[in-house]
């Protein structure tokens, strides 16, 4: 049973860029133990919404609450420390660091005493353990020592997720984690999401409809900045306005 207070709740979020309304009065709840998928055509405002939830952009109006506490104007690093982890649509890994070092640097964000200049970062056991676990979770252990720039596209997408996991987030905001992945890699990431689900709240922005309908507990459909429909996969699949937005194609049909 999901808990009564949503892990992350957006109420009437609006974001304007000049005359363009990128996100228009969107309300959405992500609950602990759920995968909440966010779908919609390109330009629907999904990435803007993620950037609002992660604190990267400030909303023009509306509120965001983390476990019931208002996060008005919270900066990205503050939200990250409070447990909101995000991945980026474009792989955003440190190209000159190895996969392991990428994760260790990520884990380091949570450690106290960042000013202890005499302690070598490479000898930090806590962040090394977190990094090892995160790499194992996404199946990248064999590629630990490979530099970010030597990884394949799919491996970089997995490293994105591993870096996020290394910060031990309770809320995950995943911006198209499967984009450009091979089928085998996608399956592995979907399995990972299922394993992560019981302990976390997950917001998944994704274009791969088969994947979305396979893992999501709740689906929200956006178009032109506002919410078109929201509900269980079954309800969304049968929603007339959603079918229209997707040009009449039946979506996510088995």
């Amino acid at each position, binding site marked *: 049973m999901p808990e009564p207070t949503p892990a992350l709740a957006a109420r009437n979020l609006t974001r304007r860029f000049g005359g363009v309304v990128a996100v228009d009065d969107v309300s959405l709840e992500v609950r602990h133990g759920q995968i909440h998928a966010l779908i919609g055509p390109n330009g629907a405002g999904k990435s803007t919404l993620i950037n609002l939830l*992660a604190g*990267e952009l400030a909303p023009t109006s509306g509120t965001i609450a983390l476990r019931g506490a208002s996060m008005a104007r919270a*900066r*990205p*690093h*503050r939200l*990250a*420390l409070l447990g909101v982890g*995000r991945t*980026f649509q474009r792989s*955003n*890994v*440190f*190209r*000159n*660091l190895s996969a392991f070092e990428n994760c260790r*640097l*990520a884990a*380091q*964000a*949570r*450690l106290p005493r*960042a*000013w*202890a*200049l*005499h*302690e*070598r*970062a*490479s000898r*930090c056991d806590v*962040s090394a353990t977190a990094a090892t676990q995160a790499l194992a979770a996404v199946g990248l252990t064999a590629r630990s020592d490979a530099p970010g720039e030597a990884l394949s596209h799919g491996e970089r997408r997995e490293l994105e997720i591993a*870096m996020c996991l290394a*910060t031990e987030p309770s809320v995950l905001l995943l911006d198209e984690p499967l984009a450009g992945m091979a089928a085998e890699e996608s399956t592995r990431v979907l399995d990972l999401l299922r394993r992560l689900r019981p302990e976390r709240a997950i917001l998944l922005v994704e274009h791969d409809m088969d994947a979305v309908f396979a893992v999501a507990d709740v689906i929200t459909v956006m178009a032109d900045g506002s919410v078109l429909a929201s509900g269980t996969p079954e309800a969304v699949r049968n929603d007339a306005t959603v079918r229209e937005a997707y040009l009449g194609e039946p979506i996510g049909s088995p």
Partner: protein
Amino acid sequence: MNAARRFLPLLALIALAVLPALAGKFYVELVAKIMIMAVFAMSLDLLVGVTGLVSLGHAAFFGLASYVVALAAPDPYTAANLWTSLPLAVAASAVLAFAIGALALRTRGVYFIMVTLALSQMVYFVFHDTKVGGGSDGTYLYAKPEAKLGGWSLVNFGDSTQFYYAMLFLLLLVFVFLRVLLASRFGHALAGIRSNEQRMRALGFNTYVYKLAAFTLAGAIAGLAGYFAAVQFGFVNPDMLSWQQSANVLLMVILGGLGNLFGAIVGAFAFILLEDLFSSLTKHWLLLMGGFVIMAVMLLPGGLTRAGDAWHAWRAHDA
């Protein structure tokens, strides 16, 4: 190549250690000056090469500490005590760097360059246009600070050789400190900010605080260099905190190679030795200097310390 990389710094250190026994007073004083500038350049490398913050106002912190040497002295013929005036000078530079950094770090990229330039020029004009520290003429310091421990004189800054070894010690001290810092979690976070600041914020790093800490620390180390520059030169004037001085030290770091501290040291040596060489050849030495810098940047984009890599890349390309 790897062996050379390991042994070259060691050979350079040995050469520096024996130089006063082999060279005359002129070169001992010149190399002492270069080592002071190398400390200054390393402090800027912490910003430009490590953190990715291009500051064009770094001389303000160097020059302010120089002025503290003059202002802390009771009169031009009596020097201030080293143990009080040095901490005072470094603290003054750190406070100024904190204040300028707090404002400038709210901007990014080319705006950051402009804001650091503008704020440091304000400091320049305070010393240039008011009577503080002798106005545009500056002040002479006829006495050197005394470094006494108990009743015993630790080092006599008036003696070229003793001053030289004190500066060699300072250079090593700052180099080792910064190398340890780069290997620490703080240093890794700074490197992460240079590489991808948005990513660091998303991971939970308060990048503004990290950058401000680096900026303040770099200012304090620049102050350390500025203090000893004033002690060696025996005078202070507004040129020491001018934007030309900021540009020169930036050139040293770029010339030597960014981000590894060795480059800052090599760049300081190359820059000042060439300045000395070219100015002995012709009055129009700035033309030669400019030509050299352009050639170096074109042919060795990684700086003098990465000349080996550039050579291998060129050979591989040719083959």
